[in-house]
């Protein structure tokens, strides 16, 4: 079942790259995708990530976070659309803001690294929020710490107050609602 669920997006991407969602393309994509899913579905050896940390190939923080573990979740399409809409709004707003600053005679750039505590332990939520923050002009995730999970966000528009923390908290709340991670650490109030 999992194999089929993982094959479908690969088949769609394959057909999308050909620019033609014809049955023949979808079938070819499904065959190629199936082979890829089978070839890469081998579970990582227990302790494989720790070995990479020991060899210095992966930073310790990543090893601690155990991102390799499967995490079950259910996407709520409606909530996911809300997340994407809010993200698009933030993206456009901060792009305009950064554009104005760049073109102004004296750019007002105030840099800082702000600690933003997260309410959930879900690695998937942390990944989504950290990526969204990094994608938004003016903010960039520098580091993630585990237990308690915190994002360290670099901002170009530092103000005394907590606008960055508020943005992270909002994105986290929306992300939890969108993907509903089934995980004991999820204690964000709905």
């Amino acid at each position, binding site marked *: 079942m999992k194999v089929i669920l993982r094959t479908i997006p690969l088949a769609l991407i394959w057909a999308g790259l050909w*620019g033609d969602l014809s049955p023949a393309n979808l079938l070819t994509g499904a065959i190629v995708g199936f082979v890829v899913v089978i070839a890469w579905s081998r579970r990582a050896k227990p302790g494989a990530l720790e070995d990479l940390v020991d060899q210095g190939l992966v930073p310790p923080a990543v090893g601690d976070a155990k991102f390799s573990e499967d995490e079950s979740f259910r996407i709520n399409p409606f909530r996911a659309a809300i997340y994407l809409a809010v993200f698009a709004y933030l993206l456009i707003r901060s792009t305009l803001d950064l554009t104005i600053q760049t073109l102004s005679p004296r750019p007002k750039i105030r840099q800082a690294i702000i600690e933003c505590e997260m309410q959930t332990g879900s690695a998937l939520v942390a990944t989504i929020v*950290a990526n969204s923050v990094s994608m938004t002009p003016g903010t960039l995730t520098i580091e993630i710490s585990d237990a308690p999970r915190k994002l360290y966000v*670099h901002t*170009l528009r530092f103000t005394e107050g907590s606008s960055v923390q508020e943005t992270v908290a909002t994105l986290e709340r929306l992300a939890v609602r969108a993907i509903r991670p089934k995980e004991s650490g999820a204690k964000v109030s709905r």
Partner: protein
Amino acid sequence: MRGLVATLFAVSGAGLAAVAGIGLLRLRGFFARIHVATKPGVLGLVLVAIAAVVAHPSVGLASRLLLVIAFQLMTAPVAAHMIGRAAYTKRIGREDLLRNDLGADRDELDG
């Protein structure tokens, strides 16, 4: 009419790419430049892709550009994050910070 809309999208997209270049020259400091070089261009790409679909509407083009945008949105932040993190661990640009919560207690990052 369609040509006008496509032109508007294409020009604003190209404008954002130009902003990335101008910002690289005008802003001071490593992190400020990373921000302006990696971000506005992505929205610019989205706008140019929309312009292309408006100008030549077809499922084939739309599906390909949708994939371009999706992969761009997935990979651009990872690249920006890794460059920023590498710079921080090498103590580049820290003097520009007005406040640093990451601070010295995370100096085990340095290496």
